[in-house]
């Protein structure tokens, strides 16, 4: 295939060539960045909660006086446990993707906020909660019966706790976290073990580094730890069990109010929590697809115009011996050249756009491998778009050369 005559022909259509190249360049820039945003969001919503989401649900009641807490807990635990299919019911203060109950700043020193570690989520759980959550211990020991202590203010004043690996790596980098101490004002905590993963209630709100800064604190139910219950059942029983549990509340404790919104399976809470991110992903994909469609239609439009404009020249070429394939190849190569020009410009634009987005939104740099992928997509798109007009060009009979228009 000779490229020189194609370039010579394109030189006579500078404006149209430039326009297609521009369009491809813009599409390339938006495509790379939009795909990057989709992948970033996707990673965000894939967050590992560390708990057996499919087997767990949470049930929240309120509207009772703190002095009734022990009574409400006792009634709810007994009542809910009698529901067929229920594997366990335990008291907890918060679950991943539910309302946040215990976020507080902690530090390496007592009674001061100078040598701070950061704001962590305290997950308080009564006996059995650790087992029900299905957390994975990677270091240290499990909570024993005497580790469960009553909470005075919002947590026990002196507690042995489990921390997530992410928090351990952050607070004591390169050291064993076991036996280490930390304080939340005057409350003292000592690390007895490390769990693989445990997400905060609102993992998004605290930056990408801190999504799992959690402290599992064994706590005796009562006082402030009341009203929120962790239900565990076989995953395919769970919706029914939760439904029965919600209905049973009125009978078990007639004076409390069921919190409808916060009595759901962890899976539903998760879906709700990430709903806006899912919508954003759908939106981005919609924009990508529509934009590629518009670009392809634009190429079809201009290529058809060229084919029509050059009918006579095509006829002449056919008459002096060019095959149909030659004509087809001509238009395909022409498109390839223009799109390549557009992609080169588009890569620079994509990087510029990424820099702009990095300034305004917390986005990392665009990985380089997005560029060749974007290039391949656009080459493919260009070839697909030009195929129709090129086939029509190839079908021009040689006899056209002898006719005047």
């Amino acid at each position, binding site marked *: 295939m000779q490229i020189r005559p194609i370039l010579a022909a394109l030189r006579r259509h500078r404006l149209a060539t430039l326009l297609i190249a521009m369009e491809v360049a813009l599409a390339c820039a938006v495509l790379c960045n939009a795909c990057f945003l989709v992948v970033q969001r996707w990673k965000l919503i894939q967050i590992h909660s560390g708990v057996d989401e499919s087997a767990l649900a949470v049930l929240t009641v309120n509207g009772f006086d703190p002095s009734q807490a022990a009574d409400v807990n006792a009634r709810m635990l007994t009542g809910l446990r009698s529901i067929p299919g229920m594997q366990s019911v335990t008291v907890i203060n918060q679950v991943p993707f539910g309302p946040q109950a215990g976020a507080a700043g902690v530090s390496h020193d007592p009674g001061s906020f100078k040598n701070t570690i950061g704001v962590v989520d305290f997950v308080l759980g009564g006996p059995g909660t650790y087992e029900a959550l299905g957390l994975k211990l990677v270091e240290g020991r499990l909570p024993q019966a005497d580790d469960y202590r009553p909470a005075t203010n919002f947590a026990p004043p002196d507690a042995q706790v489990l921390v997530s690996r992410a928090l351990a790596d952050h607070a004591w980098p390169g050291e064993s976290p076991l036996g280490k101490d930390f304080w939340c004002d005057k409350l003292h905590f000592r690390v007895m073990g490390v769990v693989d993963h445990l997400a905060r209630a609102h993992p998004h709100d605290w930056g990408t580094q801190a999504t799992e800064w959690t402290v599992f604190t064994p706590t005796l139910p009562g006082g402030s730890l009341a009203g929120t219950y962790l239900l565990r059942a076989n995953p395919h029983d769970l919706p029914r069990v939760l439904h029965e549990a919600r209905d049973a509340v009125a009978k078990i404790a007639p004076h409390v*109010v069921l919190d409808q919104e916060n009595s759901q399976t962890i899976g539903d809470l998760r879906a709700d929590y990430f709903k806006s991110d899912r919508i954003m992903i759908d939106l981005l994909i919609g924009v990508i697809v529509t934009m590629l469609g518009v670009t392809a239609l634009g190429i079809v439009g201009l290529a058809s115009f060229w084919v029509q404009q050059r009918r006579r020249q095509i006829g002449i070429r056919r008459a002096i011996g060019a095959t149909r394939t030659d004509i087809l190849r001509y238009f395909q190569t022409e498109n390839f050249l223009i799109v390549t020009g557009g992609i080169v410009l588009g890569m620079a634009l994509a990087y510029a756009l990424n820099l702009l987005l990095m300034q305004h939104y917390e986005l990392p740099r665009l990985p380089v491998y997005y560029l060749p992928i974007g290039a391949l997509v656009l080459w493919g798109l260009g070839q697909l778009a030009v195929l129709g007009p090129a086939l029509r060009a190839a079908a021009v009979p040689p006899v056209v050369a002898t006719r005047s228009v």
Partner: protein
Amino acid sequence: MFAYYLDLALRSLRRNKALTALMVLAIALGIGASMTTLTVLHVLSGDPLPGRSGSLYYPQMDPRDMDGYKPQDDPPEQVTWIDGMALLHAKRARYQALMTGGAVPIQPANSAIDPFFEDARYTSADFFPMFDVPFLFGHGWNAADDGASAHVVVLSRKLNDKLFGGKDSTGQMLRVDDMAFRIVGVLDSWRPTPHFYDLYTGSYSSEEGVFVPLTTATDMKFTHNGSNDCWGKGQSDNMKTATCTWLQLWVQLDTPAEAAAYRKFLLNYSSEQKALGRFQRPPNVRLPDVMGWLDYNKVVPSDVHLQVWLAFGFLLVCLVNTVGLMLAKFLRRSGELGIRRALGASRRSLFAQLLTEAGVVGLVGGSGGLLLALLGLWLVRRQPSDYAALAYLDLPMLLATFAAAVVATLLAGLLPAWRACLIPPALQLKSN
């Protein structure tokens, strides 16, 4: 002449329907996407109290101890009970109101309605005149009610509809958390957007159902919703003495001179408190107005900005595409244009003819864009976010949609029209 160009444009557009449809579609998609996202941005970054917001200010000061002090720190976003009450009673502004959010159990007299929790605002008497809150029945409470921790309550229109079927309920009693409250007023529909006076309970949340005096709410230990920022000895059972900021203070200052004087008063107050040893940090006061406060808190979600950027990128792709298609369309008619030139039409009139054609594409594309924007906003309203319900197209945005579509298409038409006017008439006539 314009009518003739219009006729020519319509004929030309009809001649090649596929190409015309492509251009209209590109413009409609681009404009539809842009106007949808712009409308959402427009609604979200709007002025919650037009005409009044410029004279409402949010005093901030720094009552914290020296723990973790950095000179460039911003003061806390709320005030303590002690400072809030001191500024409230100083009455240095035309109006001042201290407030926080919460939720209270309502026990309706009508046994057909189960007890339920309702979002509440605990505030002081000036809240109603300062924010120019419209009343359907009755009125707000007065400063004496604040002082006496009176058991009075103001209901929202929605709650009054729910409890009393929309009838005038003033003077009746309502049981709130096992205590009887006298209803003194019922609000008319009122939903400032954003929910500027308390961003902690959601930047775009709807208004509260119940308003009670802050003093009463504190005495009765009603549940407090929002943010507590504590230091030193921190939170205790008595929020009146706790070293925590948890209340919002708003003041109305009608002139810049009054605002300057108030700022000075805040500085003096801070210095005085530091001299007394209550404040430890150097005086650090702020006095943003409503829009300044909303900017500082970045209330418009960053996703919304991102969507606007994305839509405009998309519009640009569509426009470049339209330029290309229009170029193809105009150049295809070189023969016809050549004849018009040869018959005496000037370049200028040819240019006007082609731009008329572009304008027609723009108008049709704009109508399509409007339909797509309405569809887009309908989709936005089905989202779960609390601002979703607000996404409606208003008249200025509707006109802007058409203006944007026509201007964008005319701009897109400039280059192809100019290129088509350069065609030498003789060459076209000869080649035919």
